[in-house]
């Protein structure tokens, strides 16, 4: 008689435990997913504004001082978002789907901070230069593009 109760009880305990873990993971996972989505949106804004500037630098679109200044101001603003709540530990490629963030972002935090700060500096320089003329924009563009590659070389993994 006892056994009949014990088995379902044990089973339900196990199920509760599994469900509890899954829900717990779900919360953590959701926070990581949200941070990943947010920083990918940040990167999207970086590339959107860089595209306006880059196309003008290349002469694909004609140089326009006001548009260049606006794009550069956006870029400067979006480059300096506080990283502490965007780059949550654990939101790493291979652990959470959809991200290419390498473990080195956290294991080499100083290096990552340096690379990200280089973008802030290049974006601020672009904000100073973009409205002047095409030549000034082109000069700033080289430094700006370099900061993308430098950071992606060390801290972004290959496509999933």
């Amino acid at each position, binding site marked *: 008689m006892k056994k009949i109760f014990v088995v379902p009880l044990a089973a339900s305990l196990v199920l509760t435990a599994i469900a509890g873990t899954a829900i717990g993971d779900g919360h953590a996972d959701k926070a990581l997913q949200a941070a990943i989505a947010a920083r990918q949106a940040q990167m999207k804004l970086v590339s*959107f504004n860089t595209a306006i500037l880059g196309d003008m630098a290349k002469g694909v679109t004609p140089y326009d001082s006001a548009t260049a200044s606006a794009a550069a101001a956006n870029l400067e603003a979006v480059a300096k978002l506080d990283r502490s709540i965007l780059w949550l530990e654990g939101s790493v490629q291979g652990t959470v789907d959809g991200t290419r963030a390498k473990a080195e972002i956290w294991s080499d935090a100083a290096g990552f901070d340096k690379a990200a700060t280089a973008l802030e500096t290049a974006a601020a320089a672009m904000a100073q230069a973009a409205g002047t003329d095409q030549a000034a924009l082109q000069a700033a563009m*080289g430094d700006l*593009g370099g900061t993308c590659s430098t950071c*992606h*070389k060390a801290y*972004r*993994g*290959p496509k999933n």
Partner: protein
Amino acid sequence: MMRWFLLLGVIGAALATSAGLIVTRPDRSDVDFTGTSEADPAAGALVFAAAGCASCHAAPNAEGDARLILSGGRAFASDFGTFFAPNISPDPTAGIGGWSRQEFTDAVTRGVSPAGQHYYPAFPYTAYAKMTPQDLVDLFSYMQSLPASDVANRPHDVGLPFSIRRGVGVWKALYFDTGYEVTGPLTPAETRGRYLAEGLAHCAECHTPRTALGGLDRSRWLGGAPNPSGKGRIPNITPSALAWSEEDMIAYFTSGLTPDYDSAGGEMVEVIENLAQLPEADRAALASYLKKVAPVP
């Protein structure tokens, strides 16, 4: 009667062994240097950039001029173990300063060391085998002009059976194909691009998938591959997946920025640093070649 069988067995085994030894024997290069001009180190610097030598042989994380100190040490994880790039600086003992041009050519185009051992194909000699005699002359003189480093080589971390170097001879017999993959009538630019892509720049080493034994699956040439270091994939760069214009490709090879203003990442950043040193015509040649590659779905 029994004795005859035994004798036949012994002869058969001996034949099989000698055939095996012949197949796996490291063979020297027969590159003919007659007709080459005097070494031009400046031209060699461009061959060096196109071939990406520093990307593997510079010390790990070296930047700027330090990338010209080819002390080695960088690790390459693979399914067969971890390979460590050797010192190829001109140091006479730690590096290759004591090598003759012939020994250099054997290494670069045949994957054979001065002592007559096979190199592992982590060293892309199957691509470098296409290197012209003049490029070899220029590259050798340029590399001998670089700073020496006395850093000792780190042994590869490779387990049995791959630790038996002679086995690389079997691999070479199966996969060492020096023919070009893209054939047919080509413009001079496309021909130059093919030499750069299939030879010096060895694009296929990462962008083409491999068989279980680590040979290139030529039916999926440049069709993308799993990343040997584990996570993610190396992209398909055939026309079915890469719809960029030639201008877009040239811009990418120069700045590392894609048409959408994303940027190159990982190992490709170093490739771009190298390609950016080449004349614009070479980047255009590479772009024209990529348009000629058979689409891989």
